[in-house]
């Protein structure tokens, strides 16, 4: 019990204390513009204590901003999964498909969200719709898709031949082989991909909001930088980090469930 507390509570708290100390010392010495932890707390208090109030378009409680961001991430992420998973299956099942599309995937994969966003805006500018939102969704989807695509493909290739032989001996139809054997056998890999994708989607949202000026954590961060309220930048960073961490933990739990089965 004692070592449990040390491992899970005291050691992490020591880590936090170290960072706070470095932060305080830095703000007092070489980085005069960096607000100290205390000043940050005071300036952030209204945003944290009333996390859901709306005082203006760009002046809202921090959880309210986070909610906007999360909704957008959820939409973009859903698009990424809906498109990415089937592509992963095709890549895993067909060598022709792999040879055709793998090079282009490898080229598109490392492109930064900041590079995709202008293209997203351009794409939807002419349609007369809310180009900011759709551009952001496009960017989230295309950036966060790749881990899902690649992990699913690896998972499909890793399905043991024995399982497929069972299907062959029973003469399962293609559809049944897919639903009864391929998908269940690939699920653990797929969920690893889903978790990594969610992490990227959350990274992308901040960049997308900064550039489009949408209300959200990232938009708030950029606005407060322009308004010279540096305390709120730190507040936003911490919020983004904590939410990203929680999302990753939640996905890990789901992933572990599927790993345990097979």
């Amino acid at each position, binding site marked *: 019990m004692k070592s449990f507390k040390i491992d899970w509570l005291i050691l992490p708290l020591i880590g936090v204390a170290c960072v706070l100390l470095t932060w305080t010392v830095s703000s007092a010495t070489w980085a005069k513009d960096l607000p100290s932890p205390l000043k940050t707390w005071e300036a952030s208090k209204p945003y944290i204590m009333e996390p859901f109030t709306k005082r203006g378009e760009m002046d809202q409680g921090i959880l309210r901003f986070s909610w906007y961001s999360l909704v957008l991430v959820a939409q973009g992420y859903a698009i990424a999964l809906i498109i990415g998973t089937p592509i992963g299956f095709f890549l895993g099942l067909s060598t022709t498909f792999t040879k055709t599309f793998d090079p282009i995937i490898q080229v598109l994969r490392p492109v930064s969200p900041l590079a995709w966003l202008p293209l997203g805006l351009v794409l939807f500018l002419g349609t007369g719709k809310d180009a900011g939102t759709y551009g952001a969704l496009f960017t989230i989807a295309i950036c966060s898709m790749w881990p899902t695509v690649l992990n699913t493909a690896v998972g499909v290739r890793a399905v*043991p031949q*024995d*399982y497929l*032989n*069972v299907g*062959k*001996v*029973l*003469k*399962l139809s293609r559809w*049944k082989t897919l639903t*009864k*054997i391929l998908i*269940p*056998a690939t*699920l653990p890999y797929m969920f690893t991909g889903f978790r990594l994708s969610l992490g990227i989607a959350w990274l992308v949202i901040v960049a997308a909001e900064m550039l489009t000026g949408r209300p959200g954590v990232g938009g708030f961060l950029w606005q407060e930088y322009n308004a010279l309220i540096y305390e709120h930048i730190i507040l936003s960073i911490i919020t983004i980090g904590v939410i990203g961490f929680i999302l990753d933990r939640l996905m890990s739990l789901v992933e572990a469930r599927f790993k345990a*089965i*097979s």
Partner: protein
Amino acid sequence: MAFLELNNVSKSFGGQRVLSDINLSIEEGEFVAIVGYSGQGKTTLINLIAGLIKPDKGEVSLEGKVVTGPGPDRGLVFQNYSLLPWLTVQENIALAVDQVFPGWTAEQRLAHIDKYVAMVKLSHAKDRLPKQLSGGMRQRVSVARTLAINPRILLLDEPLGALDALTRGTLQDEIANIWQTERKTVVLITNSVDEALLLADRIIPLTIGPGATLGESIPVTLARPRDRKGVNHDPEFKRLRALVTNQLLAFNANRKVSLSRKLIRPDLLPEDLEAPRVNRPPRRPGEEKNEVVVTS
């Protein structure tokens, strides 16, 4: 025309001849064991019969129909069980039963599954996942799944190879019992002469590859049921075991085993005793020699 027939079947993988000119005919209701060394094409042979791979030459036919692909008329029990890990015992068997008997009602199928789960004595474990079962139990599920689709012929690919000796014995008895009641045609692949003698009507040795082929079949006329303890003292059992073992050993005697190894010639330069003692990784050319030893 025999029930199952293989005519001059040959199969190569990557230019290497694995099986050549396999001729085999098995009558309905017969229990045939094919005995051979590991890695000589036993699994390839059973996969050919199952239709999972196609022969390069010759053909396999069951009841006069040429085998062109896998199908539920040839029930294959896999060497490594091949249960789907995300399905329970019941669901694993249900996958097979639902596929093979689509016309049945749900109750009929459930009763059918229960019957075979009971036959392999797993009624208490039917809602467990494969990972919660021991190796022997898993193989029982696999046998039940295969029997439940009511195949015309049962193909057992080293079904007990991965089990410990005690479980192996128990399962051998169970397979013998099931065969007594179901009277299926069975092809058993094994590397254990005793297992073959306990179970089969006929033993066919598989020669050594490359290009392994079937030897002359040896009928096993021991009375059934065969008692694994009593049989050890049976002179006929001893004679057959010696016969099969000697055949298999004779195949192996013709095989040359070669062993390649790398020799490091001694360093013949005068040694500086003052120099620090280290292994000298960069060796001069000529210091290494590759040698092949051939046993006869």
